[in-house]
């Protein structure tokens, strides 16, 4: 009996995250999928058919029979969409690499710092979150613009004669993404490095391994789970990023978030924008599945 109750409670506990996913992920996805198969209409809501579950099975089937793949065909026919997807993926990938190059040394430095100041360093990484994300991105406009702080400083230091044109370019987008997502990469790497047993590196050095080689052969592989988690935490949201390219990027920046916005708001075409969103989701599900697999493998090896 005791065992039975135990298994029921454990099932209940397990079912909570599933229920959460069902309500907040699967149901919205099905709604978006449904709209992506509909057609535009001048009405409230601006698409047809509208499925009404209360109207009975027959009308439900009648509605479903009106579904169309047209919107997906549209996405394939116009090169705009795949160009926007590719450009988003490239921008996200470059940003992720840059974030890693900057973030890893920070995480390493934090993990190797004396234990007494680590909480303070951790606090400093988290501190920017206390200010609104939007305001922090706006602040970069003030720093990067032609008469901004950066250019003023460089000109004062006689490094450059004419202001650098950074704002409204891809460079500004990379800066914005690297800055905004840095903590998401630093924290998992830090937690992986902090757990690491440093005597392994000492052992390697005792056996004559040069420090750099010891880092590459021991420290880096051991921090891999953190690196992978951090990279995905940067790459996935950066792909769909809208605010940073809108504020810091130039007009020629093609990103899928912006394309989705103009389909939804300028064209009032909810079906096509839903189709764009579904395809984006599918594009991102692949790296997410890869991520989960590597996580599972890591857990496996820890056992």
């Amino acid at each position, binding site marked *: 009996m005791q065992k039975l109750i135990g298994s029921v409670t454990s099932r209940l506990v397990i079912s909570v995250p599933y229920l959460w996913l069902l309500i907040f992920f699967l149901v919205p996805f099905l709604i978006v999928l449904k709209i992506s198969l509909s057609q*535009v209409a*001048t*009405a*409230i*809501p*601006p698409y047809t058919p509208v499925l009404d579950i209360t109207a009975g099975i027959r009308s439900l089937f009648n509605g479903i029979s009106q579904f169309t793949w047209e919107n997906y065909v549209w996405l394939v026919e*116009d*090169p*705009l969409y795949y*160009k*926007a997807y590719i450009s988003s993926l490239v921008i996200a990938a470059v940003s992720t690499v840059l974030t890693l190059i900057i973030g890893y040394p920070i995480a390493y430095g934090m993990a190797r710092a004396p234990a007494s100041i680590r909480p303070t360093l951790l606090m400093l990484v988290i501190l920017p979150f206390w200010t609104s994300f939007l305001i922090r991105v706006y602040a970069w406009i003030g720093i990067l*613009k*032609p*008469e901004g702080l950066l250019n003023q400083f460089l000109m004062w230091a006689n490094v450059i004669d004419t202001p650098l044109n950074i704002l*409204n370019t891809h460079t500004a987008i990379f800066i914005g993404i690297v800055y905004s997502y840095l903590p998401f990469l630093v924290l998992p790497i830090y937690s992986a490095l902090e757990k690491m047993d440093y005597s392994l590196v000492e052992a390697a050095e005792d056996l004559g391994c040069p420090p750099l080689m010891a880092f590459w052969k021991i420290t880096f592989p051991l921090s891999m789970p953190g690196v992978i988690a951090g990279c995905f935490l940067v790459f996935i949201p950066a792909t769909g990023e809208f605010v940073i390219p809108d504020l810091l990027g*130039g*007009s*020629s*920046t*093609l990103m899928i978030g912006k*394309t989705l916005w*103009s389909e*939804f*708001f*300028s*064209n*009032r*075409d909810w079906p096509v924008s839903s189709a764009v969103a579904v395809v984006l989701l599918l594009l991102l599900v692949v790296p997410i599945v890869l991520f989960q697999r590597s996580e599972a493998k890591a857990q496996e090896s820890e056992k």
Partner: protein
Amino acid sequence: MGIKTVLLTATLALGLTTSVWAQERVVNVYNWSDYIDPTTLEDFTKETGIKVVYDTFDSNEILETKLLAGGTGYDVVVPTASFLQRQIAAGVFQKLDKSKLPNLANMWDVISERIQKYDPGNEYAVDWMWGTTGLGYNVAKAKEILGTDEPPTWDALFKPELAAKFKDCGIHVLDSATDVLPSVLAYLGLDPDSKNPDDLAKAGELLEKTRPNIRKFHSSEYINGLANGDICLALGYSGDIFQARDRAAEAKAGVEVGYSIPGAAQMWFDVLAIPADAPHVAEAHELINYLMRPDVAAKASNVVFYANGNKASQQFISKEILDDPAIYPTPEALSKLFTVTPYDTKVQRVVTRLWTKVVTGQ
């Protein structure tokens, strides 16, 4: 205290609160940001006892998407008339009960007639403010480049060799096909309201030629850009540019911003309308009627620097605004302003695609 007493008190409390709710009259308003004198709403509440819940938006697209989703809970909204026509067709609005709007007599027939293009018979909406889409410019820089005190015309933006001279100090253009293409068509001598794909393509071609000179297509950044002196030319809404002018004057950093109606320009109207599913229809009518009072409309214009559609209010509008031809154009300039009708879904696709090409080069 037994369970009965508890229940009884609870019921009583509930009864009390519901009666309070029934007495409190509310109207939910969704308006553009910075578009009214804040004291107006307080005065309205003092006079009528109706509480105003006030929300703001900054683009027609956002408003329209909410309205099309339905169930917004708003009683009075302020779309631009060119969006209104399609929204009426979608069944978003209810007809105004004109018997409850005696102040309609104050409205300016010149404006009401033009709005009839979108709302035949003025059945669904009354004008709040109106303005033009033209050029904002940095007065000193424009003088230096053009060599004249005359305000810039469309040539400054649409003649690539002239625009190239403004390039370095920065040009912004509204990121909105419906606000830019009609002016380009008019500049090319075509019908600004043309839905013909060939005409639209010609407008697109001209824009692509001048595109290398444009720093950014964006619908609000130019306000700060002009005010701070970061840019020197912007195709934007008159009222936004007047705001930039004020901010620049307040900052006292030596930046002076001007607004020019650069030839044949597009005229727009922001109108008051009541959504079909508005929960407080009577209160909405009372508010709209109040806003059409001459002194109230004048107070708003005096604060936001837009012309309003209220003829009777003109006696209360400050001279500085009423005599500014950039706000209240002279009758002949007014006759040159044009209005456009919205695109249907198919043409809208063509236009948005064309616009994406103009903006991104893709």
